[in-house]
């Protein structure tokens, strides 16, 4: 199976169905009952589900454009449209939204990049080398992903507070410390995903490179990494999404509002004055969700391939 095939298996049936489209259709009268029994009811179900899926999102969008400001005022959908809330969002020094946004992106990107790198290194050795402990290693990684890191949140908190005595830059309140903690989860979830993909790259490619005098490092960095680029993108993206939505650990590590991420900042902002801050919160929610949603939808097909091979939201 080639790389493209394995990622785009969602498209497989389209190829099948196009075959039936090409066969000449018998001319027959359009009958409503028959149409409904075959595909009509499917449209009905699909439309109901689309409404349920999309409505809350439209509601947030409407609330964010509504200058009324409060929760009750947000119930009139799209009555008035103004960008007042978006302006206010960036003006209150007590809730530095712009900083939260930047913090989230920085923490998310750095974590994603290193997660991909660490995961790829490990997947390379599992896929290309045979050594004692390999099977046990793979099994343990698979089991470890059953236990999310935040279960040990108390120990992480105490570990960081002790670490802060030695390296103040890594202690509680430090974004760098938080990133290091997130990297602890780098292998658990992703190596398995990458390992499967690395296995689809034929060994003969490495061997040919080896004969040409390439070292293992050259094989890894210049050949393999390029061939597995799609899975690197998927893992990076999944890691980015997971990191930006993480609340438990971020909320205990980042205590200063200026260092917080969107998840922590927006939650503390809206939970203080739930009803009154609603419109401004909605504006923040729209801005926070947009980048993630755009990237997700653009890379949807690839992500689906990655997800179905083992990771869960």
């Amino acid at each position, binding site marked *: 199976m080639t790389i493209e095939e394995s990622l785009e298996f969602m498209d497989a049936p389209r190829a099948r169905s196009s075959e039936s489209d090409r066969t000449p259709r018998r001319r027959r009268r359009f009958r409503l009952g028959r149409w409904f029994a075959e595909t009509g009811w499917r449209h009905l179900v699909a439309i109901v589900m689309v409404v349920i899926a999309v409505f809350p*999102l439209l509601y947030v969008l409407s609330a964010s454009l509504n200058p009324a400001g409060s929760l009750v005022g947000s119930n009139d959908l799209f009555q008035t449209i103004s960008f007042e809330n978006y302006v206010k969002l960036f003006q209150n020094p007590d809730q530095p939204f712009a900083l939260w946004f930047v913090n989230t992106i920085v923490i998310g990107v750095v974590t994603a990049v290193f997660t991909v790198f660490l995961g790829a290194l490990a997947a390379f050795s599992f896929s290309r080398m045979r050594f004692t402990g390999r099977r046990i290693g793979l099994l343990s990684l698979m089991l*470890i992903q059953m236990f999310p890191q935040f279960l040990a949140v108390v120990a992480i908190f105490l570990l960081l507070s002790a670490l802060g005595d030695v390296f103040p830059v890594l202690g509680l309140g430090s974004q760098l410390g938080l990133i290091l903690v997130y990297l602890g989860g780098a292998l658990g979830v992703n190596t398995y995903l990458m390992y499967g993909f690395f296995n689809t790259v034929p060994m003969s490619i490495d061997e040919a490179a080896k004969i040409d005098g390439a070292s293992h490092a050259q094989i890894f960095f210049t050949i393999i990494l390029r061939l597995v680029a799609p899975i690197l993108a998927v893992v990076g993206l999944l890691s980015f999404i997971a990191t930006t939505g993480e609340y438990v650990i971020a909320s205990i590590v980042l205590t200063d509002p200026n260092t917080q991420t969107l998840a922590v900042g927006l939650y503390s902002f809206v939970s203080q004055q739930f009803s009154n801050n609603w419109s401004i919160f909605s504006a923040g929610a729209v801005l926070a969700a947009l980048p993630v949603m755009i990237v997700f939808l653009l890379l949807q097909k690839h992500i689906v391939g990655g997800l179905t091979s083992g990771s869960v939201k």
Partner: protein
Amino acid sequence: MADDEAGTLEAERADDAERASATTTGGEPPRKGARAARGELPRLTRSGIGGLLAKIVLLGVLDAVVVWAVFVMAGLSMWIPIVIVLLITGLINWIYLGRGKRLPAKYLTPGVVFLMVFQVFVILYSGYIAFTNYSDGHNGSKTDAIAAISANGLKRVPDSPAYPVNIVERGSHLYLLATDPKDGTARVGTTDEPLRVVKNATFEDGKATKAPGYVTLNLSQVLDRQDEITALSVPLSTNPNDGALRTDDASTAYVYRSDLVYDKTADTFTNSSGTVFVDNGEGEFATKDGSQVLSPGWKINVGFANFKEAFTNSQIAGPLWRVILWTFAFALLSVITTFAVGLFLAMVLNHPKLRGKKIYRVLVILPYAFPAFLSGLVWAGMLNPEFGFINQVLFGGAQIPWLTNAWLARLSVIGVNLWLGYPYMFLVCTGALQSLPEEVDEAARVDGASPWRIFRAIKLPLLLVSVAPLLIASFAFNFNNFNVIYMLTKGWPRFTDTTLDIGSTDLLITMVYKIAFGQGGVRDYGLASALSILIFILVAVVSIIAFRRTKTLEEIN
């Protein structure tokens, strides 16, 4: 050097190829040429030198940082961590400076180090904390507790000499630079570091103003950080009974002494009215009859006391059982509902003649693309009983207590999690349905099986084989689905039979979080860790049973 290692890689590869060709008939013969390549003299290509340099530089940086860390830790008397750090660093150097068989380790080490520290070690550490009384008032050693008790309740000594002081800073910590009124020496110290003499200090009018390695604060900085400065309480010596220096105006400090006097030989505190406090064996100083307790206490091992407390203390035990039951119910119901809806939708949309399939697919997975923590908050707004959209608009102003009635709140949580989770199941099921062989389906149809029967007897069993591991993972995920619960209901409505902040929709993980970091009440790390250990055990047992039944683990070769 790098080429040598590649030789090992090559050897292993060749072995593999031999093994593979032995099993598959007509496979390519193992490459003998590759073996011959091993005999070649190692050539150092340009990138080989670059890699070597990069390796040496990175190792050098690591070692330098470790050496520095060891000195800092030695200053803090952290001997066990020093040994561990040195062992790990030694191992890393050994791995990267060696050749041959260590090659796999070179690729695994970076990730594994992080995994060991921030995933495996923290789990073990949780296990340790679960057996201690670690909590807000019990978070240090006994020595720290004695110093803290002596520092609390400080009173100014009536005839205290005045110490001229300056405020200096090192790192982000503030220090007092004091001039001893008796001998005129400059001394420096801060809250947890007793005063010590500094050499080469700069004096103006007999008052020390600067010390090497410290930055003296100017007037505006002093004004900015007034609170920190007045909070400084610098012990005069390591003996807590000597008292401590404090300053109100950042220019003169006086000796303050606690009215509690510690007696080293008897291990007791005595206050000015003669009450004696003894070590009560529970990590605290208390009067013999237990009526008065000094705070803070210190950390001791308490055995299974936290687990015992969780299941016997009337404040915790009842709610805990309900939380455990609800956690299982929530995880199970979440998997069942999301899978049912996802599968149904996948089957509905998986029809060759359906138009607009692509658009439908993109639109129905939108909830999955929306960040989960935001979904919880948005739904919390929509379900708000007084002002929310659901009650105000859909139910015409009814006051249905969606989030405040215990059972309705549970229903809402399941519902919102269904909204969030069905797209994932939809994607998984669509993929699995499309990979099912079509011949089976056709054969059944020819034999006259009804669509329902085809689904029940053929499609569903085949589907379950491929998605079972994902359902188990989904169960484990929902078992700890912190974000939805915490953002939507915060675990509320609260139980009425306990003073703890635990409620009807709390999962074990949100309960752990609230016990350890909740607002108000004592932060009980020991109890919280005991509960996390409980979660570990429950998830492990469920996963092992489930994986045994589906035999997924056997697929790993």
